[in-house]
């Protein structure tokens, strides 16, 4: 009787923590499959700085950052600094941006995606655990597994690539601070983009 109650309670607790993506708190645990079908878990990445990037290659805001090379360049720059960059697509079946693993791999290659991992999350499990709202929506998790950034890629809410050069680099500045062991300013801000098509 007692052990059943304990299990139920433990289940309830993990459910609660799964829905809290608060800056300053432990980042919600997740596990997903990459495009090769291999399992990727956040728990395996302790000791690494992890970036989560919600992506939808057909969303005009994402296209702004990929066609310009902005996000691929950030992926390359920071994975070279030992950051684990995970691109995640949570588009539900039949909705914009949802692709099979093979098609997503082809599209990621074509659009220049240079992430360490690419997870398919068509059930929206990881998306909802983080309350990912838009594509793009960026999260940074520090080496201790604490969420230290939840917000926009930059400060210009537009689909115009010309705005990238003049925008405040909210995400990149935050990641630089995390890498340097400094405090992140503006750690939580409103992301812009298309809705994640759950």
């Amino acid at each position, binding site marked *: 009787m007692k052990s059943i109650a304990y299990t139920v309670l433990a289940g309830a607790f993990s459910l609660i923590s799964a829905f809290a993506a608060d800056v300053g708190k432990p980042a919600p645990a997740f596990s997903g499959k990459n495009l090769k079908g291999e399992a990727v878990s956040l728990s395996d990445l302790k000791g690494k700085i992890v970036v989560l990037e919600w992506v939808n290659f*057909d*969303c*005009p*805001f994402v296209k702004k950052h990929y066609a310009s090379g902005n996000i691929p360049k950030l992926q390359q720059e920071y994975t070279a600094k030992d950051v684990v960059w995970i691109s995640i697509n949570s588009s539900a079946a*039949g*909705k*914009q941006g949802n692709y099979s693993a093979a098609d997503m791999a082809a599209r990621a290659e074509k659009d220049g995606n240079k992430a360490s991992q690419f997870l398919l999350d068509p059930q929206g499990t990881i998306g909802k655990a983080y309350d990912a*709202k*838009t594509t793009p929506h960026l999260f940074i998790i520090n080496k201790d597994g604490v969420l230290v950034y939840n917000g926009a890629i930059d400060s210009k*809410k*537009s*689909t*115009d690539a010309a705005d990238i050069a003049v925008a405040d680099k909210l995400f990149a500045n935050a990641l630089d601070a995390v890498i340097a062991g400094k405090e992140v300013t503006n750690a*939580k*801000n*409103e992301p*812009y*983009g*298309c*809705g*994640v*098509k*759950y």
Partner: protein
Amino acid sequence: MISRILLTSAAVCAVSHAAPVRSGKAAVELIAASTTYQAGKPVEVAVRMKVDREWHTYWSNPGEGGMKISVKWTLPAGWTASEPAFPVPKSFHTGGLAGYGYEGTVVFPITLMPPAESTGEVKPVANVSWLTCNDDACVPGKAELSLSFTPGPVAATGDEDAVRQAIASIPTAVDGLTLKVTEKDQLLELTVDAAATFDLAAAKVFPETEQAVAPAEKIVFTKDGEVWKATVKKNEYASGPLKKLTLVIAGAGAPAKVTWVAEKS
């Protein structure tokens, strides 16, 4: 008979109206009240957008996600253009995100201002870009629109009523209508003081200021003595105490706008 023929040929001669341009999930056109302008006097134009069924576009405060229309002008020397004005929106919930915007036809008035001296025949060009979304997808649109204007007294285009109606649909400040905002925890207490004839009971109220009110909040006012009160959740992205809030009030008379600005301490 003859006058009708003359009228018809006059309508054909006036370069008042190009065909709408389709892009993405909408069609847009630039309309004007007159084919002419007078130096130093405002020229009223508008971007009329027809959004495909089952898609919507966005208000100046789009809510969560989304993006408002952008109009970038190439203007003749000395001319200026206002930002587009936004009619009263509707609320929608798309794929879990709360937004504000428009379905069907929406007309955004813009005021062009010629300089004090005539610049002859002119052709201002508007580069318009916008976003339409539904539950499944988001599709952008863009178009280059232009109209020609010649100096002279007002010459009707046939669109003057549409432009005038668009201007009338824009929320404006109302004498005697004031807003006060106080904060308590993560709640905003709104107090509207309105003329006795202003009935907010059935009004639809929208937050024009971005990142002030939590998305999806229904702003419902109830009478409290002489004033109207509402309590709403503050937006999680508001940084620090709220400094300004503009509300748009529809359905209580002509569309109204009221602004509160925090006192400087």
